[in-house]
């Protein structure tokens, strides 16, 4: 195991840690705040402020970082560059949206909430992983182009 390998793993741990603290501080680990954001009649704008905070930083840092020839710990960038809008993208996002509105969890807050020991977090993450495996198993029957 090279040291660059260990450094990448350490970076990932730190990013996961900071990301989850950010989610919790901003209220995103409370599903009622997600559901409230999606309900204009009792609107909870927390998610909007989270997006403003996160995108406000990254929209500035992204082009600055990409001025580098390569990342610090790798030889090339691993960022998606596709521009095509496919049925798979839209259908998948719609299915995700239904689940998001139904439970009030997206993947990050679900994983972070495991630490609470609360049953819904475990039910959600267990079902989410099952759904992910289910897609891998069924995608060849769907005839959706990659």
């Amino acid at each position, binding site marked *: 195991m090279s040291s660059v390998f260990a450094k*990448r793993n350490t970076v*990932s*741990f730190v*990013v*996961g840690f900071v*990301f*989850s*603290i*950010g*989610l*919790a501080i*901003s*209220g995103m*680990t409370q599903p*009622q705040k997600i559901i409230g954001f*999606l*309900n*204009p009649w009792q609107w909870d704008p*927390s998610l909007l*402020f*989270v997006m403003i905070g*996160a*995108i406000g*930083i*990254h929209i500035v840092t*992204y082009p600055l*970082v*990409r001025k580098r020839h*390569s*990342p610090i*710990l*790798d030889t*090339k960038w691993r960022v*998606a560059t596709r*521009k095509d809008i496919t049925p*798979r993208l839209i259908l998948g*996002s*719609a*299915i*995700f*949206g239904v*689940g*998001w*509105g*139904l*439970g*009030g969890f*997206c993947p*990050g807050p679900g994983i972070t*909430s495991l630490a*609470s020991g*609360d049953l*819904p977090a475990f*039910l*959600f993450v267990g*079902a989410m*992983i099952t*759904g992910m495996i289910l*897609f*891998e198993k069924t995608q060849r029957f769907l005839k959706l182009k990659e």
Partner: protein
Amino acid sequence: MNFNQAVYSLIGGGLIGIAVTIMLLFNGRVTGISGIVSSSISKPTPEGLWRWLFIIGMIAGGIVIQATKPDLFVNVSGRGSLAVIIAGLLVGYGTVMGSGCTSGHGVCGLSRLSIRSLMATMTFMLFGFLTVQAVRYFAGGSL
């Protein structure tokens, strides 16, 4: 929602923006949590160990929150176990099909002005909205 909550959400969002910047700068990767979780299972290689460390990092952050400010995990959504399980299945299935979730498409994708991520984000916001309205209309807001 009051002024303090808006400030906390901005600060929390800022932390997320810093986190995804660190991932990009050092590892050259998008912080897409649905992709990280699904690939951690479908590609369990030594090169993919970083995904597991990311997940462990998230849970470690959650443990710190649980120890210091457990009320940040209060769940009064009114959604029962069956609804949460169906929600999880749909979120897992849909995010892998649509190649991303709120982090990968919403935060990282919109920040690099990706048209695919913009379409994905608008779609899941719309369908999330429609679902919340359907639950309100048919079930009075709780399931």
